[in-house]
């Protein structure tokens, strides 16, 4: 018989660490940041 096995949810600590020296992805080029408030 096949039974469903419980799987623990992934936590923040389980994520694969970014290699040292690897630059974070650049922000999307556009649209730019909101300078005052969102309308």
């Amino acid at each position, binding site marked *: 018989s096949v039974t469903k096995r419980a799987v623990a949810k992934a936590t923040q600590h389980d994520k694969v660490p970014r290699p040292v020296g690897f630059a974070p992805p*650049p*922000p999307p*080029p*556009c*649209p*730019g*940041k*909101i*300078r*005052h*408030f969102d*309308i």
Partner: protein
Amino acid sequence: VPAAPPPPLGCDDPEAEAAAEAAVNYINGQSHHGYKFTVNRVKDIRVVPQGPNNAIMFVDLELLETKCPILSPTPLENCTVRSFAEHAVEGDCDVKLQKVDGVFSVLASKCHSHEDSREDVRKVCPDCPLLAKMNNTEVLETVSAALNDYNSKTTDPYLRLLEIGRAQIQYHPGHVVVVEFAVGATNCSAEEAKANVQACQLLPEDQSNFGFCKAVMVKRPSQDLQVDCQLYGHQVPCFPGYSSLGITLSQDTS
């Protein structure tokens, strides 16, 4: 092997910000109505190289209304952005610029402006007064009363209405009409205007001959009128006896 094309210009890159600044200064310089606008964000930018040190740029801008009247000498960077709760106006502009040797010049611009959504303002501030129509009878009456009140209490040149900037009417808890309007100085004194107002002509279109007034007319529970006018570049004497007449002085700028 041909060199890889340069990465696209980001909307927050210094060059994009410089282009946006040049564009908004041009837009404000071309406008003769309402208030100065400032950049809220660069929505999109495209660069078409034309040769060494020469490029055409297409910029899509989201603009916000400031509290500085368009005729005000106050630099844009010192202008306060009008809050959403005040029922402001926003703008969207497509601007085509040319950048030659680091200098921007605007080749074309197309803008649309509209007031913020009344429903959205209501969500943020249920009791805030919304913008009223410029031709609303109460608005026109308040502007007329305010200008008469000011002219009757000053020895300065007689002021004429140039345009109404904005107006709001509040009905609860009291009935209040708030108006803002641009004025121009004439070649008449208030006394001369009383005799023949038709003869009073606006002084030459110099910034120092313009001004801006704000007036609050309380109609209920009791009647009251407060007028505050700022004349750009004019030294205005103060009248301490008139509690309802506030006068602020502006600095001359070159």
